[in-house]
């Protein structure tokens, strides 16, 4: 049975488009201190949309979905920290 809480695929795609546009906007207009966290959060949101919205992996294995999101979160965190710290020095 399909979960009634699952986002429809077109809505997932639309959210991915919006998040991509916002990421590009953040990269070009925000100062580095705000840019890092903003880009990290938007990138993690996109990764979660792919794992939970397109793959719907949580239905089959919540652990596997969590591991993929954790992996994406680690890379996004490191990327965000590097961007944020680039304006400090």
């Amino acid at each position: 049975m399909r979960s009634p809480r699952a986002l429809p695929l077109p809505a997932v795609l639309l959210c991915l488009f919006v998040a991509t546009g916002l990421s590009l906007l953040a990269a070009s207009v925000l100062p580095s201190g705000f840019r890092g966290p903003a880009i990290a959060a938007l990138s993690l949101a996109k990764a979660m949309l792919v794992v939970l919205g397109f793959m719907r992996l949580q239905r089959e294995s919540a652990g596997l979905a969590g591991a993929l999101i954790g992996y994406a979160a680690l890379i996004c965190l490191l990327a965000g920290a590097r961007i944020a710290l680039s304006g400090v020095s």
Partner: protein
Amino acid sequence: MNIAVREGLDTAQPETGSGVELLLWILIWSELVVFGALLGAFLLLGALDPPALAALRSGLELPLAGMATIVLVSSGFFAARAAFGHHPRRNLVAAALGGFTFCALKIAALVHELPALAATEGRLSELYMLIVGFHFAHVLFVAGLLLLVALRPTPRHVAGVATIWHLIDLIWLLILPVIYLG
């Protein structure tokens, strides 16, 4: 993944693919580890040498990277539709065409970026080429696999190739903040 295919394509499909599925996930995680190591190395080198990173980034084509992202996530949408049982053949072909379009956009970007990359000395530009080239090779290869599966789409094959396609999508979404958006 497989749940939807079982719902939408062939409810009588026997559960014989758990070994194959385990191998698929071992392959996927080994790819993630390799890309994670490459992205980690890029982050480390970029943090150690900010002027080289700034020089590299000034030569990159951010608008084309944005367009490539839109194309790749759209092809992920078609792969997801195929995996959930909506016209698998048609959607797999659409996903593959998205992959080939992504490759064309990356070639166009590289044509613009190569002179700047050639002028940039150091490991960062080499690492950039390695990461982007490795991902490009994955997109090209799996887009070909999407077409092969589209010839005779069986539920398990559609689910497997769609899963790999989503992972390639995911890796690109992680390449973007590490390399392009800083």
